[in-house]
């Protein structure tokens, strides 16, 4: 018991310690820029989390990050580093707009919305699934291929929006035709936060159970842990790779759908503003744990939401929030290396009395007659 208690304390202490350390570092930065660090902390808290009206700002900014973060977090459990979030998001948004415009008002709005979501998920899924397929069957490095797929997606967006899908009346900012108003996603009642937030939370919870609590997730983790062992055990590694990548891409694709159907109403260059890259950071800071990704997204959303106040009230430069964000991520990633290094959290091997080997999850003790 005492051992697992210490480990739990360690896994709480290190992330929160990292957060505090990055706050202190950021305070030094603010001090150097001529702002009172304590006042800045207070402002970040008020602007990001303090009141319900400002907390909604945080939620709005966090929503796309959750879905986009899953695009990196899921394949990471298979040992793959996928950074094609931006591309999958853009492609998902394009597919959603194409579907929404095709269906138009011929069917009820709910069906249009479901159709747009499915189209976005399939398109995004195929996009990242392709990177997974290339990885497994053609041995193409998935990081590079997914990164390059981003550029292709953005080029495709620019081409379609500037050519075949262009609304001729969108003169100086080429865009597709707008979605019908009835087909737009509304806000969650009583708030100004769109439904994308709920999609994000649900997707993260589902992803968590899928990876941690199902045989499928277990096989994926085995393949991620040791691919040869997985093969020896007869796991279909190729299929797993493609399916997990497909699911990851479909999350980012859904984020794209939400962005066009809840915010922009059209597909244009505003689709490609860095939600994908934000998602990569969220996934890494969350240790690729989907539930932690929810919290990290909220944290990042809060930091981003406070950016306005920092500029307006403290005359800090606009890059301040990026500095803060960068510090948090650097310190969090560095803190990873501290696991098992701090003496206080080390288990004391001499005290333990139980001679039996620790049972691994899902495996009942073998009863020998």
């Amino acid at each position, binding site marked *: 018991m005492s051992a697992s208690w210490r480990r739990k304390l360690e896994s709480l202490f290190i992330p929160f310690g990292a957060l505090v350390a990055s706050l202190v570092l950021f305070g030094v930065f603010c001090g150097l820029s001529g702002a009172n660090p304590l006042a800045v902390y207070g402002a970040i808290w008020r*602007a990001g989390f303090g*009141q*319900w*009206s*400002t907390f*909604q*700002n945080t939620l*709005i*900014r966090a929503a796309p990050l959750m879905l986009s973060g899953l695009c990196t977090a899921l394949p990471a459990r298979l040992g793959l580093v996928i950074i094609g979030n931006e591309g999958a998001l853009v492609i998902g948004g394009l597919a959603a707009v194409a579907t929404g415009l095709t269906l138009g008002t011929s069917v009820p709005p709910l069906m249009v919305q479901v159709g747009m979501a499915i189209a976005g998920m399939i398109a995004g899924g195929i996009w990242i699934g392709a990177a997974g397929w290339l990885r497994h069957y053609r041995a193409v490095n998935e990081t590079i291929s997914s990164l390059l797929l981003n550029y292709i997606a953005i080029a495709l967006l*620019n*081409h379609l929006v*500037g*050519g075949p899908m262009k609304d001729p009346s969108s*003169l*100086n*900012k*080429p865009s597709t035709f707008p979605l019908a108003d009835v087909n737009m996603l509304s806000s*969650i*009642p*009583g*708030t*100004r936060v769109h439904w994308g937030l*709920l999609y994000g939370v649900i997707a993260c*919870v589902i992803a968590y*159970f899928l990876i941690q*609590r199902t045989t499928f997730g277990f096989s994926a983790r085995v393949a991620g842990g040791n691919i040869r062992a997985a093969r020896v055990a007869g796991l279909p590694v190729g299929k797993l790779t493609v399916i997990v990548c497909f699911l990851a891409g479909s999350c980012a694709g859904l984020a794209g759908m939400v*962005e066009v159907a809840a*915010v*922009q*109403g059209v597909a*244009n*260059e*505003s689709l490609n*503003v*860095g939600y994908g890259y934000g998602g990569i950071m969220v996934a890494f800071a969350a240790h690729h744990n989907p539930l932690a990704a929810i919290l990290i997204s909220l944290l990042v959303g809060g930091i*981003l*939401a406070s*950016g*306005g*106040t920092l*500029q*307006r009230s403290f005359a800090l*430069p*606009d*890059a301040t929030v990026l500095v803060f964000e960068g510090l948090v991520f650097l310190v969090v990633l560095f803190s990873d290396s501290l696991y098992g290094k701090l003496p206080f959290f080390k288990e004391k091997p001499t005290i333990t009395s139980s001679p039996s080997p620790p*049972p691994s*999850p*899902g*495996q*009942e*003790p073998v009863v020998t007659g």
Partner: protein
Amino acid sequence: MSSKRYLNLSRRQVIRGMLATTAFGLTAKLGTGCSPASNGAAAGGGADGLTIGFIYVGPKDDFGWNQAHAEGAAAMSGAFSSVKLIEEASVPETTAVVESMRGMIDIDGANVLFPTSFGYYDPHVLSLAEEYPDVQFFHAGGLYQEGVHPNNVGSYNGYIDEAQYVSGIVAAMTANAGRLGFVAAKPIPSVLRNINSFMLGARSVRPEATTQVVFTGDWAEPIKEAEAVNSMADQGIEVVTCHVDSPKIVMETAERRGIMCTGYHADQLSLAPNGYLTGAEWDWSSFYTKLVTDISEGKSLMDGSIPHMLRGGLREQFCKMSAYGAAVSDEAKAAADAAIAQFMDGSMVIYDGEIKDNNGGVAVAPSESLKQQDVKLEQMNYLVEGVIGSIGS
């Protein structure tokens, strides 16, 4: 596993319980709802003091579009002691700009907002303007539609192609062989209009001049912009100019390659002290100061005393020329000054037929004389004769 059971609950039961609780929590939260937080426009600014918010899509020191607006805002706030200026930079054209504007209104009590990026307008400014009917929104872009858009929204933009026309004159008279270059972001009407006016200005003094155009495809593509200038220098092009978000790279590369340049958006003399000839600059300082004078006298968009559409060129002080560089000859200065004088007295029409496009077709018919306000110019989809390049798809 079996030895670690607490309260005789299986893991499955615990999970089910957690799911049920979560679901209940979500529905309960949605059901009760939280009271809407918008309390209407806060009157924090008070009657005497105006609080004016400026929002920029990029950094305030980009030597480009954003810097031009930020300098205008600073000059305006310097002219009024009672005006409180609040600014936010690097705000993307997403829900982020809505939240920024909302924060300015709710927290800082802003009563006038200037969202200065083109893409802020639809849907972001439009949706927020309906929510806050007492706040005036002035958007840089000229997109207002009478009767369609909210009454508290105004739109302003300058005919900066007039300044590009003058730049074209200076460039053509300074270049020995009349070979000019233009680095452009996208083949959209506002960019094409600048290229064409630059070319027409050049051809008005040197009919054989040519302009090589390169489209980089996006507003901020520093690597492609540098490559474009390098290849132009290799081809023997003598003067380059540009229409991208930040002309910094184009100017610096031209200077390094020893060719000349004319600026855009803001004054870039400091980036190219030897080769900078002149430049087409926005004059937002004059515009903002005049507009805020009107507002502080009690005029507003809502009662119609400020027009919803504010446009103008050199004469109306929406744009201006950079001071002439050292390499500009007296003849070139005289020709440029003559053109400026024509703009000032209103007698200059840039798009005066006949104008041919660069495929040999007729762009502006002989009978046509398109004044700056003409909507046909807003839909420009051609490059005039002398421009080397194509607008693609």
